[in-house]
């Protein structure tokens, strides 16, 4: 045993340990290779996007290596790396340098907004109430209206109790999450738990178990438990557009499984993968989708969730100071 111990000591002295990259390196090829490997080994939608949009990650490596030159500036390298990441068409994929954030926001930029904030603000007026991140008001036709602009802005169970209790006599409720680009999953779960009286299956989630493109754990069911606070018992309409992303996408997924809830508007922007962060030798950090989530039928939600009722903002309505989606929702809830 002592000999073994001494052998281990000697091994420790002369052999290598678990090693990482230990030097900053600004060479274009090293950084592109490091970035490509991070995505290759950790990104969770490579196979799915190969099927859906014909993504060939191996071919992309060769293509973008060909765009490098040893003399290129940091700015030029940043542009090439961002172009490479843009091939993933994922709003959760970003490259961060001290000067810029690389992004592909085609999930919202390529589609109509279906939102005019000036018109929407007229519905709220100036006498609306604010409960943490929630703005709310009872409209003239006794329909409750909640505007939630970001899942980054938190709220507590007490806030929800107060808001729902305040609207208890309303004929219906509109939850406007248009252009809410996400934030904390906790709030998505907390909010949606007010609209079910039973534990319901809302989706599945999974994670990678290795570097292979198809190395995934068995999908675990995700249940939504009814809140112990005040729960809404009437019809609800959730307003969506293409800028509903990430946690908002998850909120819409959950709400779609709740009874008495209708999703109205445009398809959501997607963002079905929980993002992780890593970095490359030049010091830029990279964010990427790492853990996929699915809907209750095990379908991908990475490219968005279809509404129950498709509705677009009408330019003429906007000119007249009306929001087509809010008006349609009010009409549906009043019927």
């Amino acid at each position, binding site marked *: 045993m002592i000999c073994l111990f001494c052998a281990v000591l000697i091994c420790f002295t002369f052999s290598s340990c678990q090693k990482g*990259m230990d030097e900053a*390196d600004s060479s274009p090829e090293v950084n592109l290779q490091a970035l490509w490997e991070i995505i290759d080994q950790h990104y969770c939608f490579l196979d799915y996007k190969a099927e859906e949009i014909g993504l060939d990650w191996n071919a992309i490596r060769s293509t973008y290596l060909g765009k490098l030159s040893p003399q290129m500036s940091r700015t030029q390298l940043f542009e090439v790396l961002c172009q490479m990441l843009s091939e993933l068409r994922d709003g959760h994929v970003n490259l961060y340098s001290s000067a810029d954030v690389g992004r592909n926001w085609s999930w919202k930029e390529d589609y109509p907004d279906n939102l005019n904030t000036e018109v929407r603000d007229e519905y709220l007026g100036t006498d609306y109430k604010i409960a943490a991140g929630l703005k709310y008001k009872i409209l003239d036709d006794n329909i409750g209206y909640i505007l939630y602009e970001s899942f980054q802005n938190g709220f507590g169970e007490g806030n929800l109790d107060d808001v729902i209790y305040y609207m208890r006599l309303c004929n219906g409720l509109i939850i406007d999450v248009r252009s809410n680009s996400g934030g904390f999953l906790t709030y998505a779960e907390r909010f949606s738990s007010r609209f079910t009286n039973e534990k319901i299956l809302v989706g599945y989630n999974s994670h990678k178990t290795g570097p292979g493109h198809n190395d995934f754990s068995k999908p675990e069911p995700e249940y939504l438990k009814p809140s112990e606070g005040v729960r809404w018992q009437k019809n609800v309409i959730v307003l969506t557009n293409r800028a509903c992303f990430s946690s908002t996408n998850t909120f819409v997924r959950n709400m779609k499984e709740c009874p008495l809830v209708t999703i109205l508007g445009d398809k959501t922007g997607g963002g079905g993968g929980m993002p992780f962060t890593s970095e490359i030798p030049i010091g830029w950090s990279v964010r990427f989708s790492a853990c996929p989530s699915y809907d209750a039928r095990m379908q991908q939600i990475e490219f968005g969730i279809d509404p129950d009722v498709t509705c677009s903002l009408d330019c003429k309505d906007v000119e007249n100071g009306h929001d087509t989606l809010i008006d349609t929702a009010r009409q549906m809830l009043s019927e």
Partner: protein
Amino acid sequence: MGRIRLLMYVLCGLFYPFFLSAQRDAAHALMFGQGGSNQFDTYLSPMEYKGSQFTFLRETLRMTQRAKERLSFQSLTQGTFSMTENPAQNANEYGGHIGYNAGWHYNWMLRERLRLMAGGLLGADAGFLYNERNGNNPAQARLKADMALSLAGIYKFRLRRQVLALRYQADLPLMGCMFSPQYGQSYWEISQGNRDHNVCFTSPGNALSLRQLFTLDFPVRRFTIRTGYFSDIRQSHVNGIKMHDISRSFLIGFVRHFSIIQDKERKEELIL
């Protein structure tokens, strides 16, 4: 699970004599150290983070009456806090852990001045590593328990009528268990109750680690001062996640001796 249960039985068995033994000579030491740290964890980053760290060590070493007074008991409490940065020097990681090790050594006296010790230590350790700019994977929790082979040598010598003690100790974990998320598993998922091989069996095959302590004790008036060098190398490769936590420190502290018989001439006989 069987191997983990076996480990628990071994842990209980090894601690049992601790409660039965009577104390004879004992040395209590408290040491503080500062040195370098190298952190690497592929769950957080593929880069190695380097910087400084602070350590404290509290050690108790005492002889017992067991095995014809050749069995000594040692306990070691260790705490470390590190601050490191990536090679590009634009991101930081903060880490810390606290651990407790205790066990027994069989003692051989060679040429009166040289004491060789061999035995085993049981340890448990909890800590964290936090990367300040990561999003949904900002930190890694560190929890482990293990059983280590421990070898030590203590050499006492006189210098200008004073008794000095030189000691080297190396501890090599042989088996244990540790917590680790799965390769791409988020802590949010774990918090939802989704487990996936999060408690892993460890051995030198997947978690080759080594702790080394080199100290010199010398008296200054009524006190005994201890200086030393402490090297703690922890590694693992479980669930596809590679990590190392390497810290090396220079230590300084003091030692307090306790003995049933108060006799200055016996100072050389004391364990440390």
